[in-house]
């Protein structure tokens, strides 16, 4: 089959010029989106004295990373963020896969009520429930603990992910499940053995997104944790005010925090692009 080509933009220009323009625009876009990160990496490689003329210096060092990695609090924050992100991803998917399946496969008042609830709570700004959650967490004795941070992180994804999951299951033909039911499979069996395997690409996409969202989240950690459970984003935001002008250390910390997210996104990219369709 011949490749269908959409009419190109600027059709009146000669092919060479059109190509050059296309390449130029793309290069410009890549530059704009990559530059801040490249600049951060460059800053993190400069010695303390070189920070004030990053664009001119020629000395490079890995000393910033070494210095930052000696900080116990930071290491602890890395560990905590990784742990909470991983657990939150696992449990979020566990509860939202089934909720999205229900939304997709059943019609009627129960389904539409649940959908309405999800939509409303999706809109509520985080601060409106995390702020009072601070009282709740304190009175339950889970303020500044793993569980006190993990549970809200699972709860926050329920609405959006149930919605996305519904979309994924909508795209999967339910006739296989009907066939399984007729063959004597239970409803539960039809869900776990038939529907779930075909939703694996979507689940992988959500897993990548969920991990990134949790790793990058700031407000929850700021309000719900104190000194016992430092999270990486909060520690960095504190650095900005505490370390003031020590931009080389700041940049090194930020680069270290980028690495896990970057690796995950690099390997997970194809799942996200394949799985993410509204």
């Amino acid at each position, binding site marked *: 089959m011949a490749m*269908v080509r*959409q*009419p190109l*933009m600027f*059709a009146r220009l000669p092919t060479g010029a059109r190509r050059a323009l296309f390449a130029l*625009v793309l290069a410009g*876009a*890549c530059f704009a989106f990559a530059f*801040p*990160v490249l*600049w*951060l990496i460059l*800053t993190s490689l400069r010695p303390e004295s070189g920070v*004030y*003329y990053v*664009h001119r210096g020629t000395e490079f060092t890995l000393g910033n990373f070494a210095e930052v990695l000696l900080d116990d609090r930071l290491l602890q924050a890395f560990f905590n963020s990784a742990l909470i992100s991983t657990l939150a991803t696992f449990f979020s998917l566990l*509860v939202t896969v*089934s*909720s999205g*399946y*229900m939304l997709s496969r*059943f019609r009627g008042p129960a389904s539409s009520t*649940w959908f309405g609830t999800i939509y409303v*709570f999706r*809109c*509520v*700004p*985080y*601060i*409106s*429930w*995390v*702020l*009072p*959650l601070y*009282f*709740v967490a304190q009175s339950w004795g889970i303020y500044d603990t793993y569980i006190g941070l993990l*549970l*809200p992180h699972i*709860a926050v994804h329920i609405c*959006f992910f149930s919605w996305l999951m519904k979309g994924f299951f909508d795209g999967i033909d339910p006739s296989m499940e009907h066939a399984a039911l007729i063959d004597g499979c239970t*409803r539960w069996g039809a869900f776990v053995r038939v529907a779930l395997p075909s939703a694996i690409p979507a689940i992988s996409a959500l897993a990548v997104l969920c991990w*990134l969202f949790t790793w*990058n989240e*700031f407000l929850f950690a700021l*309000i719900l944790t104190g000194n016992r459970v430092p999270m990486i*984003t909060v520690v960095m*935001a504190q650095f900005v005010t505490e370390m003031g002008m020590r*931009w080389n250390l*700041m*940049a090194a910390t930020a680069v270290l925090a*980028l690495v896990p*997210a970057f690796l*995950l*996104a690099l390997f997970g*990219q194809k799942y996200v*692009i394949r799985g*993410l*369709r*509204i």
Partner: protein
Amino acid sequence: MEVGRRPLFGEQQRFMLFLIAPAALLLLLFQVLPIAIGANASFRDWALYNPKKTWVGLDHYRSVITDPAFLEVVLPNTFIFMALSVAGALVLGLALALLLNRPFRGQKIVQTVLLVPLMVAPVIAAIMMRWMFNDQFGIVNAVLEGLGLEGQPWLVERWSAFGIIVLTDIWLWTPWFTLLLLAGLQSLPKEPFEAAAIDGTSTWRVFSHLTLPMLRPVIVVCVVIRAIDAFRTFDIVWTLTGGGPGRSTELFSLYAYVLAFLSLDLGRGSAAAIIGAVIILVVGVALYRLVDRIAKA
């Protein structure tokens, strides 16, 4: 035994309940309950020095609604921010999605680079921007001075600081639009485009008469989700300006946070949080109606 009457709570209902029970329970405990407790706190004098937590009725709501900082700075800031950052990210994201929607050499690399901001935490993005726009040593001022222009104290003036917040947000979210719109573009049927190509239709007409209308449902969903999320932006404002200079770049979430945790007036902070939630719910429901109408049209 009565015949022909279905049990009220049949096997199917039990299954449905089973599927949503864990999610519903978590939602109840960690969103519904806190909101109820916050609503209760918003009617009381819930400050540290008052252990009795006296009932004050609507006082907190009155003081937030009549607070000039809220009315004249925070609300306009929040809505201007919402409009500018969503519009900016949509236009750029759509443009990039259209560019990427045709095979060319190096497409994989370009796509990966464009997705970089998606992995960057808003806090880190804000730190990067703060460093780039640093008035003494930032690269932006260095470039300006190299061009013979004068460096600006970017984060010290209200509107330039606000502009940088918007810019950071657009940088962060454009790839998200690109990703979703690209997925939308690739799932469009090929036939209308083939027909247009045979007829020799101009690029602009293809875009405005075919691509845009067919992509409209995806665009609208993206815009609604992003607009609602933009309303609650906190991280980048906190890290870039902390709401300053003065309180001139505060957005809604920061306003409620400052009241509750810095002024330590949890009652008034809760009232502000609830007012914000009500505002966005009204906007959210209106947007949902709009989506529904457009998707069905």
